Every structure is written in structure tokens, then in C-alpha cells.
């Protein structure tokens, strides 16, 4: 029966110990997996609610931490609605980690420009933790993040913290300001106008809703970045995470196994990548 321990479909149980409300629609779930669980930043997990369903998420916590895991979830469908109703003490299922994350070792000696939007900040937060860990090997890290309104902006304390870390800069913008907002107003790509980067020695990361991914990538290309300098974190319907179920096929790639992180160079000839 040992062979069943290798069952790729079987989830690992994880105890929910805390639920953090990040915005009206977004919560972070803090989980303690039954066994040590490690991942590379940018990889994703399949997170399940017992008997209800499973959905893919990139952890938002540091990849250096292996005894607990944080997953930030936007309430947007059937499974996530059940997730949002869970209380600490409940058990969730985890499969993974799956896919190809960010190749952070190849960022050594470079400036990292990150463009994020909405719940795309979740995987970016994990990337930021990973980059903080290797900051001595990096030139600079710049985060440009946009959300719809100030109350939709997640991880509020993160920005002040990032701006206090040597080599890190973080900028925020909102589509629609509210009273008391004294930062930028406008789409996330507008923040790119104010950043100073040495493009030759830089790479760019884009993660967010499809429309932002599209226009953000086009703007970054306009700035002079080459196709292979741009990393995109793609989102698709990923049922198995194992490169088998076929739902996430995008051209000749299985997003779950060959991605979810791709360079623009790898995807530029694939049709319908922004759909």
C-alpha cells in the first residue's frame, strides 16, 4: 500500500489558524500544514475546501517559511465564497507546490521592476519576501501597484515597510481616490512614468488582472525592455496542476506545469494570451 503515498491527487491537510481581512473582498488564510511544506516563490498550490472544491493560488507568504503558509484569496466564485466563510480551526486541503516560479537566482546583479494590480499583489508579496532575502545580490527593487480604490488596496502596512528597506521603493495608485488618499490616482501603468531604471540591467515582473497584464506588458516593452526581460504570471483554469487535465492549455504550454511564470518571449507567439 506504500504506493498510495505517492498519490498525486491526494491533498495534504492544513489547519486554518488565522483569517486576515485585507479588503472587503480579499482575505488572507494562515495555514499550518500537517507536514513541512516548501515552495519556490511564484509556484502555486491547489487549495481545497473539504467536499466543496479546489482552486489554484500562489502563496503570498515567504518561501523561506516552511511550517506555515499564507494564501490570499479574493471572493470571486463558488469555491472562494466557501473559503471566505471558513473560521480558524477548520481544515483545508493543499496539493503542490506546482509549476515554475520566478527564477530569482537569475535576478542577481539586476534591478527588479514589479508591476502589480488588484489581487496580483499576493504572489508579488511572496516574491518581495524572496527578493528581500537576497537583497545584497540585487541592485534595486521597485514595486508599482494599482488597485481600484484605497480600501481595495491589500497589505496596507507592506508599503511603508518596503520603503524602509534599503534598495526597495514602493508606489501605489488607485483608479478612484477616497478622502484622505494622498498618493497617485490613475491606472497602475502610470506609475511606470516616475520610476528610474537602468533597463539594460533590469528585469520586469507583471502580475495582475488580464487587462493590466496586457497594457502593463505593452508599456514595459515601450520603455525598452526586451521580450526575455519581462516575466508574466499567467492565470488559467487549472484543475489538476499536474499537466494532465488539459484545462490550462495555452498554445503548446500547460500553464500549470510549464508556467505559471513565463517570459514574454516564451508567450508572444501564443494566441489569446490576454484572454
Amino acid at each position, binding site marked *: 500500500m506504500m504506493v498510495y503515498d505517492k498519490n498525486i491527487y491526494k491533498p495534504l491537510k492544513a489547519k486554518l489558524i488565522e483569517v486576515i481581512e485585507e479588503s472587503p473582498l480579499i482575505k488572507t488564510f494562515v495555514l499550518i500544514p500537517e507536514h513541512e511544506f516548501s515552495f519556490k516563490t511564484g509556484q502555486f498550490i491547489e487549495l481545497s475546501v473539504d*467536499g466543496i472544491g479546489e482552486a489554484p493560488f500562489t502563496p503570498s507568504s515567504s518561501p523561506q517559511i516552511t511550517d506555515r503558509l499564507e494564501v490570499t484569496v479574493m471572493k470571486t466564485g463558488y469555491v472562494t465564497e466557501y473559503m471566505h466563510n471558513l473560521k480558524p480551526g477548520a481544515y483545508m486541503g493543499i496539493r503542490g507546490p506546482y509549476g515554475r516560479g520566478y527564477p530569482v537566482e537569475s535576478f542577481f546583479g539586476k534591478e527588479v521592476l514589479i508591476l502589480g494590480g488588484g489581487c496580483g499583489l499576493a504572489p508579488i508579496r511572496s516574491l518581495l519576501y524572496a527578493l528581500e532575502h537576497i537583497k545584497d545580490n540585487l541592485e534595486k527593487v521597485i514595486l508599482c501597484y494599482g488597485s481600484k480604490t484605497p480600501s481595495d488596496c491589500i497589505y496596507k502596512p507592506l508599503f511603508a515597510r518596503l520603503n524602509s528597506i534599503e534598495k526597495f521603493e514602493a508606489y501605489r495608485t488607485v483608479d478612484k481616490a477616497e478622502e484622505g488618499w494622498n498618493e497617485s490616482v490613475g491606472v497602475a501603468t502610470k506609475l511606470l512614468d516616475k520610476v528610474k531604471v537602468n533597463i539594460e540591467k533590469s528585469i520586469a515582473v507583471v502580475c495582475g488582472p488580464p487587462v493590466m497584464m496586457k497594457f502593463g506588458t505593452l508599456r514595459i516593452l515601450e520603455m525598452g525592455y526586451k521580450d526575455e526581460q519581462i516575466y508574466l504570471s499567467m492565470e488559467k483554469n487549472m*484543475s489538476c496542476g499536474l499537466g494532465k487535465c488539459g*484545462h490550462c492549455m495555452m498554445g503548446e504550454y500547460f500553464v500549470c506545469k510549464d508556467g505559471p511564470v513565463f517570459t514574454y518571449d516564451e508567450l508572444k507567439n501564443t494566441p489569446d494570451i490576454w484572454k
Partner: protein
Amino acid sequence: MNHLIIDKEEWDRFLEKLLVSHVVFAAISDEFGQDYELIQHNNIAAITYNKPKPSTPLKSFFLPVLENVTSGGPPGKPRVIIGTPNCDIEGLKLLDEIYLDKDFMDIFYSQRRENTILISSDCFGIQEHCHCLSYNITPYATGTADLAIISLNGKIIIRIISGKGENFVKDIPASSSADTAKLLSSIEKEHLMTETSLKAANKGLPDSVTTGKLVRDAGEEVWKKHSARCVSCGACTTICPTCTCFLLIDKPGFEKVKQMDACQYPGFERVAGGEDALHELHNRFRNRYMCKYAWKSAKFRSTACTGCGRCIEACIGKINKNEIFMELAKS
């Protein structure tokens, strides 16, 4: 390649004995066509040889339509499948690449593969929509199966393909009265005649590489026109020996049920929030051909269309993919 020639009565006696230790399925023809049936003492003589092709694709033996993939038990008796045409055998190569992938091996598929002796049947003659040869697949197996079998002039001729197959037939006594050279020559003639029929029946049908280029280049109007008769029933994917897309369904106790799915069903690519790259019928329709002839052929070593023709037979909208490709090739 080694051959074993035995008397047909000896083969039937071997199968009779085999039923004690093995579960045996074989192709049997009746007035409705040909399909696999569970072999028992009373239907050994009815097994069909040399004839294409069972309605059920071989994948169904390895990937059930519905199965619990978290609490399944160990495999049962070893299994023997007799009468699989080479198109399905070649289709199994793609399934092996996907499900025996060293990164994520599906233990249920792997155990079924290990637990099965696969005996292919050479095709003498063709069916209306057979077109394996157009995609470089011969109507007789030379790999992947364990054995290939031919019934001719009261003899059973077994082509030994794998070590597992060789071991399986090692105790069957060879026929003392067989004219080996004559039988092998007759088989070769049958192969040639079948290949000639395939070529004649599929004149003008582009090969799979050309088809890949044609489907890549075809514009939206082509897919809109040809998908007009598609009702998204998924019959083409269900019957296809290489279509194995599935859905994982959660059950209480963190159990998971794997259920066959189809890219032709609405909502196949829909994500939470509602975005769906394949929402429109013509996009789903195009997706299947891109997957078969352009994407999977770039990603995997094995072919994703074996030319079995089942999707043409199964389509209730009478969509014939070969007619579409011949039309594209002409334009």
C-alpha cells in the same frame, strides 16, 4: 521480430485456461458492429480477429470515465486485452507520456498499464473513415503493444513485441504443421492490400504536419462556418483515443473524483470571475484541432490524432474533419 505460430484450437484452449488467472477482454463483432466484451467460456470462439475496429477506444481501459483517485484499492487480477488496432496502440503512447510523466505519475494509470497484457490485432481491410496511414501509422502494430495477433488458415500467428509479451506466450506449444514462410508472406500481402486501400480512400488528405500548418493558418471564418453544425455534445472527444482531459471533483473527506471532461463543453476554460477564453463555439471547435495537430505535436513526441476516424463516425452534426482539411488544403 519473432513470430509464434500456433493452432487456433490450441490458442482457444490457452484462453480457456487463462480465464482462471486473468480478466480477459476481446473484440467481438455482432450486427451492431465490433466492440470489446468480457471473455468467458462461452464466447471465446466469437472473438474477432484481423478486423478494424472496436467502437470503444482503448483509453477507456486505462482512464475510466469516473473514478475516485484518493481512495482506490490495489489492482485486481491481471488483465488481457485482445484485438486492439494499431491506431489505438499508437494513441496509448501519448497517454503514457502524460500519465507516466516522471514528475507526476498517475499511479492508477501506471498500475493498470503494468497489470495489462496488450494484444493488438492487425487490420486486414479498412472501415469507411480509417486514415491511420495518412498520419504515418501502419494498420498493424510493431511497438507499444506486448503482442500482435493474426488469425489465418486455422492458425494464430503471434508477433512478439515486448519481453512481457514473450513471457506471456512462452508455454504455448508452437504448431507442428505450419508453413511459416507462406503464412508470413500472406500476412505481408494483406498488409500491402490494406495500405493500398487506405491510400486510395484518403487521396488528397493532408498529412498531420501539413494539417497542423493548415489549422494554424485558418481564419475565424473557417471555424465559424464548420462549427455551425456542432452542438458541443463532446462525442468527438469522448470517443477519441487520445483525448483525456478531465475534471477533479471534491467529495467530503478530502476525496477527489476524476471525471472525463471535454474541451467542446461550454465552460471548459472558464475561471472564477467568469472569464472564458473558449466561450464562443467556434473557438472551442478550433481549440480541438489546434490541440490535436499544432500544440500537442509540438509538446509531445507522440501523435494526438491516430486517424481512427471515430470522431467522424460519432458526430451527430455529420462534421467530417477530413473534408474540412481537404478543403483547407485545396484553398
